[in-house]
C-alpha cells in the first residue's frame, strides 16, 4: 500500500465511520441503547486510532490531497458543471492531522464520559447518533480540500450542534438555545458564503492548495471568510449563542462548545491564513481581543458553573483569534490544542459535579465539594490552573506564545491580553473557591458522592494532558513552528511563523506569570470563605453589567424586533392588505362594482330600454356617419 493509498483509506475510515454509526443508529440500532452507544463509541475509537496512526506516520509530510484528482483514483466529483467543479477529496497536511487527533481524542473521552452521564436519559440513542453526526461533520471540516466542501461541513456542524443543544427539547430554554445557536451561526455563514463566492470570482478556484499558491488578494474576501469564524467561534459581535448553548448536556458542551466545534473557526483561520491581508489581520486581531476582554469580564459575575466555563471559552477563543490576527497562527493552534485539553477537562469536571449534585449548577448552592469529590476536585483544579496560565502548566506555554506574538505585532493588544490573563485567573479562582471550598450551601452539595469510573477516567487522562501538553517533551510547539506545515507560506513568503524575538518571549513570560499569579491571589483574597459574592458591592453597576452580559442579548433582541421582525410584520401586512387586499380583492371588487352599476341599468323598465336603444342608435350613427 503506498502512502497515498494508506492516507486515503485511513482518512476515509476516520471520516465516514462516525457517519455510518449515526446512520446505523438512526435506521434501527436506536431501539437498543447499548448497541447505539457501542456503535458510536466504537466508530470514534477506531477513528482515534486511525488518526493517531496517520499523525505519527505523516506529521512531517507535506500537504496532500486524497484521492488525488489526477492519480489513479479519480477524484470523486461532488458536482461538476462546465468550469465549475467541486471535488470530494481530503486535504491531509500536518495541521489537519493535528486537528483530527484533537477531535477524535476529545470525542472518545467525551463519549466514554457520556456513557455514565447520560445513562438515565430517554434520548440515549439519539444523543449518541447526534455525537457521531457531529464528529463526522467536524472531521469533514478538518479534512475538506476546498472551500465549498468546508462550507458544507461547516453547515453540518451547525446543525449537529443544533440537534445536540436542543437534545432536551421539551425544555423551552434548550429548544430556544438550539435555535439561537443555529441562526446566529447562519448569520456568520452568510458572510462566509459571500466570502467563498468572492474568492471564487477573484481566484477562479476554491481548491485550498491552489488558493494557497495564489495568496491573498483583497481584504474584503478575507474579512467575509472571517465572518464564518466569527459565527462558529462565537466572536464578538456574534458571541451571544455560546453561553445559551450550555443548555445542552454537559459532555456536549465539553466536546462541541469548548474543545472542537468552536475551535473550528480558529482552525479555519489558521488553515486559510494565506487568504488574509495585513489589513484584514488587524481587524481580526482586534475582534479577537475585544471578545477576549468582554467575555472575561462577563465570566466574573456568572453563577452557573457551566456559564462561567462558557464565557471563559469565549474569552480563550478571542485569544486564539487575536493570535491569528497578530500573525501567529502557530501560537493560535498551540493554544487551541492545550485549550481543547484543559477546557474539555473543566467541562467534564463540571459535568461530574453536576452529575453528582443532581443537576445543580449554581456555584453558590454548591460548596464544600473538595472533600466529597476529591478526584473531581483535583482534576478541576488542574484544569483551572492550566486555564489560568499557572507556570509550567500547558496553558502557561500557549498563552505565552500568544502574548509574545501580540507583543511583537500590536502592543495595545499585548496589554489587553495580559489583563485578560489576570481576569481569567481571577474568575477561575472564584469558581474553584466557591464551588469546591467552604461548607456545602445546598441540599444537593451535601448529598454529593464521587462519579463512576467512566467519568473519572477521562478526567484523569485529560488532567495529564492539561499539565504536560505544553512541555517541550511533547514537541507540540516545535511541530507548529515548523514552516512546512503552513500552507502557502513558502510561496508567498508570508510572515508566519514569526521568529519570536527574545525580548518578546521574555516580556510575555514575565507579564503572563505575574498576571496569572496576581489573578489567583486576588481571587483567593476576595472569595476565601465568603458566603456571598462581594463583587457587586464593590463594583456596583459594572458588576450588574457583567452579570447581565452587558445587555447584548437585549440589544440584539431589540435590533431584531426593530428591523427584521418589523420588516416581516410590514411585509405580512402588505401581503394581507395591499397585495391580497387592495390588489387582488380590489380588482375583483372593481369588477363587482361595475357589475352593480350596470345592474342599475337593468331596471326592467321597457322605456329605459327603449331610451337606451335610441341612445345606442344615436351613438352608432354618429360613429359611423361622422
Amino acid at each position, binding site marked *: 500500500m503506498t502512502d497515498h493509498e494508506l492516507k486515503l483509506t485511513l482518512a476515509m475510515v476516520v471520516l465516514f465511520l462516525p457517519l455510518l454509526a449515526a446512520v446505523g443508529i438512526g435506521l434501527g440500532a436506536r431501539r437498543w441503547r447499548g448497541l447505539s452507544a457501542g456503535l458510536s463509541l466504537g466508530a470514534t475509537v477506531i477513528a482515534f486510532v486511525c488518526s493517531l496512526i496517520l499523525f505519527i506516520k505523516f506529521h512531517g509530510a507535506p500537504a496532500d490531497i486524497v484521492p488525488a484528482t489526477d492519480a489513479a483514483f479519480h477524484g470523486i466529483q461532488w458536482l461538476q458543471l462546465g468550469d465549475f467543479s467541486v471535488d470530494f477529496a481530503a486535504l491531509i497536511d500536518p495541521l489537519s492531522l493535528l486537528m483530527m487527533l484533537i477531535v477524535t481524542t476529545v470525542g472518545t473521552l467525551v463519549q466514554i464520559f457520556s456513557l455514565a452521564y447520560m445513562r438515565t436519559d430517554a434520548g440515549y440513542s439519539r444523543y449518541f447518533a447526534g455525537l457521531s453526526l457531529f464528529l463526522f461533520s467536524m472531521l469533514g471540516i478538518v479534512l475538506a480540500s476546498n472551500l465549498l466542501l468546508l462550507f458544507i461541513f461547516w453547515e453540518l456542524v451547525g446543525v449537529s450542534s443544533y440537534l445536540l443543544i436542543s437534545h432536551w427539547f421539551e425544555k423551552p430554554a434548550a429548544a430556544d438555545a438550539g435555535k439561537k445557536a443555529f441562526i446566529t451561526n447562519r448569520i456568520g455563514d452568510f458572510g462566509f458564503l459571500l466570502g467563498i463566492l468572492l474568492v471564487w470570482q477573484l481566484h477562479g478556484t476554491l481548491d485550498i492548495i491552489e488558493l494557497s499558491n495564489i495568496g491573498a488578494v483583497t481584504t474584503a474576501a478575507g474579512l467575509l471568510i472571517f465572518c464564518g469564524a466569527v459565527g462558529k467561534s462565537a466572536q464578538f459581535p456574534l458571541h451571544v449563542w455560546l453561553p445559551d448553548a450550555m443548555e445542552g448536556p454537559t459532555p456536549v458542551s465539553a466536546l462541541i462548545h469548548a474543545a472542537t466545534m468552536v475551535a473550528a473557526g480558529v482552525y479555519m483561520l489558521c488553515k486559510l491564513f494565506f487568504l488574509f491581508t495585513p489589513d484584514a489581520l488587524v481587524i481580526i486581531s482586534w475582534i479577537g481581543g475585544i471578545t477576549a476582554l468582554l467575555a472575561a469580564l462577563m465570566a466574573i459575575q456568572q453563577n452557573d458553573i457551566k456559564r462561567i466555563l462558557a464565557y471563559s471559552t469565549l474569552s480563550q477563543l478571542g485569544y486564539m483569534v487575536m493570535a491569528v490576527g497578530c500573525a501567529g497562527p502557530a501560537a493560535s493552534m498551540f493554544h487551541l490544542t492545550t485549550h481543547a485539553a484543559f477546557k474539555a477537562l473543566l467541562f467534564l469536571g463540571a459535568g461530574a459535579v453536576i452529575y453528582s449534585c443532581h443537576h445543580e449548577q449554581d456555584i453558590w448552592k454548591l460548596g464544600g465539594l473538595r472533600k466529597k469529590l476529591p478526584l473531581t476536585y483535583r482534576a478541576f483544579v488542574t484544569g483551572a490552573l492550566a486555564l489560568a496560565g499557572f507556570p509550567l502548566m500547558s496553558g502557561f506555554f500557549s498563552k505565552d506564545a500568544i502574548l509574545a506574538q501580540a507583543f511583537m505585532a500590536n502592543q495595545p493588544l499585548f496589554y489587553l491580553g495580559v489583563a485578560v490573563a489576570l481576569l481569567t485567573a481571577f474568575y477561575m479562582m472564584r469558581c474553584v473557591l466557591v464551588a469546591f471550598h467552604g461548607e456545602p450551601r445546598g441540599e444537593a452539595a451535601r448529598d454529593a458522592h464521587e462519579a463512576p469510573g467512566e467519568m473519572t477516567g477521562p478526567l484523569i487522562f485529560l488532567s495529564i494532558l492539561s499539565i504536560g501538553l505544553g512541555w517541550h517533551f511533547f514537541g507540540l510547539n516545535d511541530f507548529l513552528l515548523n514552516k512546512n506545515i503552513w500552507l502557502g507560506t513558502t510561496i508567498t513568503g508570508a510572515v508566519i511563523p514569526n521568529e519570536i524575538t527574545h525580548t518578546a518571549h521574555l516580556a510575555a513570560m514575565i507579564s503572563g506569570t505575574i498576571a496569572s499569579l496576581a489573578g489567583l491571589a486576588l481571587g483567593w483574597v476576595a472569595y476565601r470563605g465568603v458566603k456571598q459574592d462581594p463583587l457587586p458591592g464593590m463594583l456596583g453597576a459594572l458588576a450588574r453589567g457583567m452579570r447581565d452580559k452587558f445587555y447584548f442579548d437585549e440589544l440584539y433582541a431589540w435590533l431584531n424586533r426593530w428591523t427584521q421582525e418589523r420588516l416581516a410584520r410590514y411585509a405580512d401586512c402588505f401581503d394581507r392588505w395591499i397585495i391580497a387586499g387592495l390588489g387582488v380583492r380590489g380588482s375583483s371588487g372593481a369588477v363587482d362594482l361595475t357589475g352593480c352599476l350596470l*345592474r342599475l341599468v337593468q*331596471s*326592467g*323598465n*321597457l*322605456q329605459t330600454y*327603449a*331610451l337606451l336603444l*335610441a341612445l345606442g342608435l344615436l351613438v352608432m350613427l354618429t360613429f359611423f356617419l361622422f
Partner: protein
Amino acid sequence: MTDVGLEHYLVVSAALFCLGLLGVVIRRNLIVMYMSLELMLNAANLALVSFSHHQPPSPHGSPLDGQIMVFFIITVAAAEVAVGLALIVALYRKRQTTDVADLTSMKL
C-alpha cells in the same frame, strides 16, 4: 323654395319617425306606445313609397318594388298589432295595468 322632391318626403318621414320614437320613449301607456310604433312604421312606409316614386328606371327590378315592400309592411303591421294587442289584453288581465312603469319583472 325649390320643387318638392325626394328630400322633402324623406325629411317628413324622418320627422315622423322621430315623433314615433319619442312617443315610445316618453309615454308610459303601453297602448299609446304601440300607436307610436305604428307611427314609426308609417314613417318607414312613407320613405319607401317616396323612394319608389323617385327611382329612375333601371334594368334591375321594377320601381314598384318599394311599394310591394310597403304592402307587406302593412300586412305584417296588421298581424303585429293584432298579436300585440292580444298580449296587452292578456297582460292587463293579469296586472290590471297598462303602465310600463309597473311592468318591471324583467329587472335583473
